């Protein structure tokens, strides 16, 4: 691609204006990541005067990849991310389609819907902890008073029910976020397309799959990407709700890094876990971006 003189000049001006922001991003993002990578390749001892580094190459990574706990938390985090993101996308899309209709009280509905998203996770996790509590939890109370169960069920007591309970809390909190992105996407679709389809005799179902869904794909991809990135950093919800239990069955990969660094004082292996997570997240992000770009290309042609 060749740029004209004018275009080149405006490009230079553009980069010049961007550079302060880029510098800040480099300082707060690239430096910590780089420093973590450096830490993960050292044997680190804590002394009275600070950390002492001794270069040890990939030794810490060897420890991480030989740890069964690492693979277990990686599997848990991946599975958790996949399930919650898919459910949130489907639910979020349904809600967004409903809210896109010119119904009365739409503003109020959007405001109410956003409440879970605005709550701090640590607080909403405490709240869910009380809801799920086996002795005085409100969920057991409700289910028992309408005779769905006879004895209290320990929601956070088995790996499967604890995982599902945690997913519920996550879906409750994050679906509004997905809804907002999709709603914005829906409002970008020109209404003339639907009018034309109607004149051609297209059914609502057909219009959804032929118009709404393809044009909404960029927004869906964007929402999915944001959610996958967040889900891989899963920490506060299990930390408050289950502390990784029962056993270590709900321990996320970020919790493992925390456990290794701050409870065990194993700074090297702990940062190695974190670096592996970052690498994974970047790969996933690039993958989604690429998928998104080809989709956008298809739409253009």
């Amino acid at each position, binding site marked *: 691609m060749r740029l004209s003189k004018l275009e080149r000049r405006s490009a230079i001006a553009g980069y010049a204006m961007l550079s302060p922001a880029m510098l800040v*991003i480099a300082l*707060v*993002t*690239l430096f*910590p*990541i780089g*420093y*973590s990578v450096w830490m993960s390749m050292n044997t680190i001892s*804590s002394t*009275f005067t600070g*950390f002492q580094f001794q270069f040890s190459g990939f030794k*810490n990574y060897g*420890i991480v990849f*030989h*740890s069964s706990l690492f693979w277990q938390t990686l599997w848990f985090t991946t599975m958790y991310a996949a399930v919650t993101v898919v459910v949130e996308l489907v639910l979020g899309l349904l809600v967004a389609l409903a809210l896109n209709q010119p119904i009365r009280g739409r503003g109020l509905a959007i405001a109410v819907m956003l409440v879970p998203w605005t709550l701090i996770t640590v607080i909403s996790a405490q709240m869910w902890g009380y809801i799920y*509590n*086996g*002795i005085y939890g409100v969920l057991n109370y409700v289910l028992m008073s309408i005779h769905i169960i006879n004895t209290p069920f*320990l929601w*956070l*007591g*088995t790996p499967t029910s604890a995982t599902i309970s945690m997913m519920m809390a996550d879906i409750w909190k994050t679906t509004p976020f997905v809804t907002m992105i999709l709603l914005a996407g829906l409002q*970008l679709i020109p209404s003339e397309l639907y009018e034309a389809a109607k004149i051609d005799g297209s059914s609502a179902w057909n219009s959804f799959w032929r118009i709404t869904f393809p044009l909404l794909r*960029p927004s869906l991809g*964007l929402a999915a*990407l*944001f959610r996958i*990135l967040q889900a*891989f*950093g899963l920490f506060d919800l299990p930390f408050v709700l*289950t*502390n*990784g*239990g*029962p*056993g270590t069955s709900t321990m996320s990969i970020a919790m493992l*890094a*925390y456990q*290794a*660094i*701050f*409870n*065990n*004082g*194993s*700074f*090297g*292996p*702990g*940062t190695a876990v*974190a*670096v592996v*997570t*970052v690498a994974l*997240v*970047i790969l996933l*992000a690039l993958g989604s971006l690429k998928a*998104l*770009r080809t989709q956008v290309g298809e739409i*253009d042609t």
Partner: protein
Amino acid sequence: MKRTTTIALTALSAGVVLSAGLTPTFLTSTKQPAHVSAPAAARRASGVTTIVWAAGTISGNGLRQDMVNHFEKLHPTIHVKIVQEPSNTNTTRAQLVSEISGGATSPDVYMGDVIWPGQFGSLHLALPLSQHLSKSFFSRFAPGLVQGASYKGVVYGAPFFQDSGFLYYRKDLLAKAHLPVPRTWQQLMHDSLVLQHKHMVKYGFVWQGASYEGLTCDWMEYLTDAGGQVFNKAGKPVMNSPQAVKALTFMRSLITSGVTPKDVITMQEPQAMTAFNDGQAAFLRNWDYAWTNSQTKGQSKVIGKVGVVPLPTFAGHAGTGYATIGGWNLYVNPHSKHLAADLTFINWMTGVQGQTILATKASEIPTNAAVQRNPQIRKLNPVLSIVSKTHLIARPSQTPQYPAISLAIYSNINAALAGQVSVKQALQTANSQIAQAANKSGL
């Protein structure tokens, strides 16, 4: 269309960079800048030094402030600011590791678990007290405590109060049902079933079964009483022994028989305490403070109805069961800028006056030998007269790898209690993970 796409993609890439940066932010916080005590100059001018004391709640009745007030009256040039520590010892440790390894100068003095000297000594998170205090300072403590606060011959903590496990019981219920106070675990189970069967109480026995350090403490008591060990004399992990199977099978049977509610696997100290204080359980395993806690107006419905005895033993054994040694030391932050004031504070807190307040206003066991022996104090503190009768057992914490060892213990015991894996499987996994942890794998 084209335009919106470009905008969306720019937003995307910004999001990627930011999110990728979010993941490791807690790593860099290990290297956070030292806290600067801002108005320090102002205080120096007025001649008052302020030190920050991070401390967990002791018996929950304002005792800490009480002690600080006494101390400040005697030492008007030192002001002590209390900072609250979390109730979960693992969370407290994580906080202190991140602050102090990052070079923070605050807190100056902190209350820390008795099992920390190994790890905190090797990570240089605590000031080696024996290099700053004379030998005569340490002679005030009851035997064994100073050794417990040491790692490789260096003393890192000043013993503050001693803790051990006790059995608390509802004397009103036992009397009404004409039952003896249980001396064996089997008796406790039987008593509970009788009381529950008569609908006199909802649950029999509550304790700490959540996946955290507290479960390791409870486990050590059953394990040792059954004749088992975590490590043998040669330092090899031996937790998959028949004795361990006996101990864990019994703990699990407490739950399957309904004596202990299933919820126990999510119970830390506060939850077990609440169930007992609410009158929902006949028996409670808890530390010293539970005495005062269960006799405090406004938080307990069982005031005057509680008795305390040493923990039971397995049927066929003479004497009492085992009680895990817990308790808290006072540690000094090696980066503290007020060393003289810190040591003065520690000296008073572990001295006769401070320890007397601790032993009489709260049912804690003082570490100061003179206070511990005082018959008048013994009369006021029922826990104190029992502790000499009980067998004590220490956790295998004299190693920097202890946190990972304990994680291997409590996470697997918790899984077995939940019925998620068999008793044998849990012990086998625990044992191999303990071996891995002791081998310095670091994860």
